[in-house]
């Protein structure tokens, strides 16, 4: 039986990213980078699916997994990992990834707006 997916954002991991020397805006910077980076990779993922480029698709999903894991977006990175390992079919992966990316986007925006106030 497949294990349930982890939460959208791993707050314990995010707390661990701070070191004593970290800039107070470090996490905002990291999330901004992620929000800049994620749409481009998602676009490439979709483009590979439409063009049937399976090898490239795996590479882009791998990149997405890496970026997501760097910001504690564990739900998204776990989906990517399951697709990479073959335990999640493409037909299931895509709708779940779309939903996960929207939820991640919202969670990150909420985090950033909370930090602003």
């Amino acid at each position, binding site marked *: 039986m497949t294990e349930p997916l982890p939460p959208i954002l791993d707050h314990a991991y995010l707390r661990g990213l701070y*070191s004593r020397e970290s800039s107070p805006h470090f996490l905002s910077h990291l999330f901004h980078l992620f929000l800049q980076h994620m749409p481009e990779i998602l676009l490439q993922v979709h483009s590979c699916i439409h063009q049937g480029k399976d090898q490239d698709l795996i590479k882009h999903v791998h990149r997405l997994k890496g970026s997501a*894991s760097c910001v504690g977006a564990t739900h998204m990175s776990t989906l990517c990992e399951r697709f990479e390992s073959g335990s999640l079919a493409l037909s299931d992966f895509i709708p779940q990834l779309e939903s996960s990316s929207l939820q991640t986007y919202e969670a990150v925006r909420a985090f950033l707006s909370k930090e602003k106030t």
Partner: protein
Amino acid sequence: MHNEGYVVILDDDPLVQAIIESATGKKSLFFPSIAACKANWTQLHPFCFFVDVHLGMENGLDLLPAIKVQWPYAPIIVITQDRNEDTLREALARGADDFIYKPLSPVELLARLQARLDSLAKRESKEVEKFGDLTLDKSHRSLSNQKETRYLSPTEINLLLCLLHAKGTVVPRDVLKKRCWGAVYVSENALNRKLHEVRRTVKELSCHVEITTRYGMGFLLESRHKANIL
């Protein structure tokens, strides 16, 4: 220890750069591909490398042997999400000093980097000897000044070490032969040829250090900055 220079990152994910800079407190040079890194090769001045395995269609491990030859005492830490043991074995075989998995933990990253810097600095202090303005690296059989490096043969490096360890005293011909060739018979000509090569290399790299002949006695390595001879 090389505490100056850049952290060099070979990764296609800019988030990795942000985390490494925050963890180490140092500015980095970031390259998303092997070609981009090679294009800036001579300007790198690295004190350590973080290298991702999967770089789009490239394998970051392909660059490891070249890094190790050029900067033997700069630690190479491989970053990956791939927990495959074959990848780990391949990385270590190609010259990686350590491994760190994504998601990156800043505490682990810094601890691993400091441990590797420490062990390489200890190794460097054993394998590198300085005299005058020259640096002799035994493990890489190289002799260098601030700008250039020359590679020597095993016999040539042994000759130089023999003279260096005599600390400015005269080393007789037969002692040089025994130390460098052991029990093998060596003609005067062969010794002269090797000494000529070493002398020429030293002269090309330094105007302070030279190998002097004391006729009828032997040879000595001299520096105008005698205090610098270790």
